[in-house]
């Protein structure tokens, strides 16, 4: 792998870093498998693209994207808690609805940001660095700042209630916490991060596309799982950093896979979803097989 490709992978990893942290919040902390993210990533991209082209600051557009993502996530949370729709189904419904909403927001399937100034350009000018260095740096700074805030939050009184809601709902309800509100807020927060990530990706690649969210949840899960396998998840703080670094490792792994050649066979970008899905299956099944193997040995 060339240095250029390596920095590209790191850049991608941090650009999708907020998305992975969002997936970590729902999947691991709230125990809420949330497919809304496949819709909220392009939602963030669309909102940001439309905001920028209509003259808003690119930085402000990221917050607008986050706000839109928060609303989308809240709706999933409300469908689940107030209308008692299974979490997975509730999130699929939001995801499908968002496809239409994203088309409405942009008024067309994709929107280019050519000639528009983005946060990526501004940061490059400000630092005076090469774009292949300044962009990953910018995204890394944003991701670590968000991780730091989340680590602080998860150690507050509210944060403990948030953690407990995913761990033991009966326990935290008996301690007087309205878990419906926690779930609605939590899924909202997660999707706000995912949408903000979508805004960053759109500004980085110079376009928003209604189909750019396909497979987001699987990429997010793969990153979370790679992160906790490699870096460990003993404490929440560690698991959050691990998820973020997992996102980078995942993109590096993909860059490596794309460079692979077996005779006349080479992996193309269109194979990535398959590879990612297989990766997630292996990662989810491994602990089970490991336990079985260890149990089998214990019997002997």
């Amino acid at each position, binding site marked *: 792998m060339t240095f250029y490709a390596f920095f590209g992978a790191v850049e991608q990893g941090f650009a999708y870093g907020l998305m992975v942290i969002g997936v970590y919040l729902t999947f691991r902390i709230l125990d809420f498998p949330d497919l809304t993210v496949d819709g909220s990533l392009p939602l963030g991209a669309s909102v940001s693209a439309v905001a920028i082209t209509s003259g808003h600051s690119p930085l402000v557009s990221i917050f607008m994207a986050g706000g839109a993502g928060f609303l989308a996530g809240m709706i999933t949370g409300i469908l689940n808690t107030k209308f008692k729709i299974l979490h997975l189904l509730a999130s699929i419904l939001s995801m499908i609805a968002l496809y239409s909403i994203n088309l409405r927001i942009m008024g067309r399937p994709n929107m280019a940001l050519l000639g528009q100034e983005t946060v990526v350009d501004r940061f490059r000018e400000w630092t005076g660095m090469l774009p292949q260095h300044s962009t990953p740096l910018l995204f890394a700074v944003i991701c670590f700042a968000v991780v730091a805030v989340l680590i602080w939050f998860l*150690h507050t009184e509210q944060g*403990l209630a948030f*953690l407990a809601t995913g*761990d*033991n709902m009966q326990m935290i309800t008996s*301690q*007087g*916490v309205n878990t419906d509100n926690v779930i609605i807020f939590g899924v909202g927060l997660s999707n706000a991060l995912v949408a903000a990530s979508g805004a960053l990706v759109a500004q980085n690649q110079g376009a928003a596309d209604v189909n750019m969210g396909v497979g987001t949840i699987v990429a997010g899960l793969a990153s979370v799982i790679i992160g906790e396998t490699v870096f460990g998840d003993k404490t929440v703080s560690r698991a959050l950093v691990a998820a973020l670094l997992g996102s980078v490792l995942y993109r590096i792994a993909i860059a490596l896979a794309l460079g692979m050649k077996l005779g006349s066979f080479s992996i193309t970008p269109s194979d990535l979803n398959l590879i990612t899905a297989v990766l997630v299956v292996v990662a989810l099944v491994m602990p089970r097989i490991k336990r079985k193997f260890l149990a089998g040995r214990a019997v002997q």
Partner: protein
Amino acid sequence: MISVTGMIKAFNKGDVNEVTALSGVDLEVADGDFITIIGSNGAGKSTFLNALAGMFPIDAGRVVLDGTDITRWPEYKRAALIGRVFQDPLLGTCAGATIEQNLAMANKRGLKRGLGKGVRTRDREFFREKLAVLGLGLEDRLKTHTGLLSGGQRQALTMLMATLVRPKLLLLDEHTAALDPKTGAMVLDLTDEIVGTEKLTTLMVTHNMKEAIAMGNRLIMFHRGRIVLDIKSEEKKNLRVEDLLQRFADLRGGDGVVSDRMLLG
């Protein structure tokens, strides 16, 4: 203190599987009463406790706690007034959180949770003092995840958490049934100590008649969703298992109210 009138609850309404779990329960509990509740399986004891805790809406009746009508209050809101220990030791504590984090969450029961530090340094000393009372050495393991504790340790911790903020009502639902006899006895001693020193108004469901007689100042028995026996103070002090069996037989005409488990427990 607590007044329950005409409480009715049926599950699977309108279904062939409809079960009337509570068919008109009336109960007046005085401040500081420690009531033990017995009854065969399906008599409605646990349903009654869960209804008091607000886990589901009741079909009819009223629950008034300390002058406040809480009949329509959701479970999380009632939690401000009610402490609970469950039969399943895993239900009462959060496995992924440390002992001090669990206690910190319990220390905020019914209070507003903000963005202040979850576990404060000054709370730690208070937690250590409280944990030392359990005599399990947990005071030196504040940073241990509760998932690593035994069932008995978790149940003792739950008992402490349920009473850390003084509850107006303490609900114990067969909280020693899932423990081995020795650990169960330890948790029961702890219950007696905490309820006794804090003079907590308590309802305790048990399958064990000896326990039901030995503990508390009042004993009630459920049968088919109703309270069929209510033995108070002086009368309860002189009560023996044989008397109780005789009362059951008289009341129900010996239709299998008493299970082996109640006798052997």
